[in-house]
């Protein structure tokens, strides 16, 4: 599963640490999600979408192998 968190973060000009603090998770979590090493839960995905004020579908996208 790929995602556009890094792009959305760049648009808002915030660091991984800032986003992690806003969402109440660790910086390592944001890094692992951005690099595709970790798939977040539904709750965290919804929190990320709410923070960027866009739909979950606009952030996360399934790939062929998923």
């Amino acid at each position, binding site marked *: 599963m790929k995602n556009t968190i890094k792009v959305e973060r760049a648009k808002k000009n915030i660091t991984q640490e800032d986003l*992690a603090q806003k969402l*109440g998770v*660790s910086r*390592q*979590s944001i890094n692992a999600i951005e690099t595709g090493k*970790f798939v*977040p839960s539904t709750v965290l995905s919804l929190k990320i979408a709410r923070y960027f004020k866009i739909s979950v579908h606009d952030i996360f996208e399934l790939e062929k192998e998923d």
Partner: protein
Amino acid sequence: MIRSFLLPRYFKFIGIAFFVSGYIVGSWKKPDLSDLTDGLGLLIQVLILLGLLMFCGAKEKAEDELIKYYRLTSLQGAVILYIFLRLLYKTLAWYTGNLDWTPHWQVNSLLIFYLVFFYYQLYVRDFFANLFKSEDEK
């Protein structure tokens, strides 16, 4: 490790204090740890085991789902490595007929393996991954 069983973060420092004090007293007095009637030896074993347990079970700064996942995979890795090493040592003891190969280490090593796996995933792996990234990729 289930989140509800986790201890407050300050137990990490209490755990370190227990472990270090047990280790220092053990190195200084050198009691026979295999003799269960020796009170000091027993006290040192309890201090070291409790210290490790507190350090392993204390919460991280931000205890989230990734850390929960790392705890689970670290525990799985530690159990597999522990069983594999014990079997290897027992096989070597049987094959060589030398009882020096019999594993004497106990649950302490399981907790140490868990800590190594956990902190490797949490800090070391990312550190090395970022080391070889350019500024643009970061």
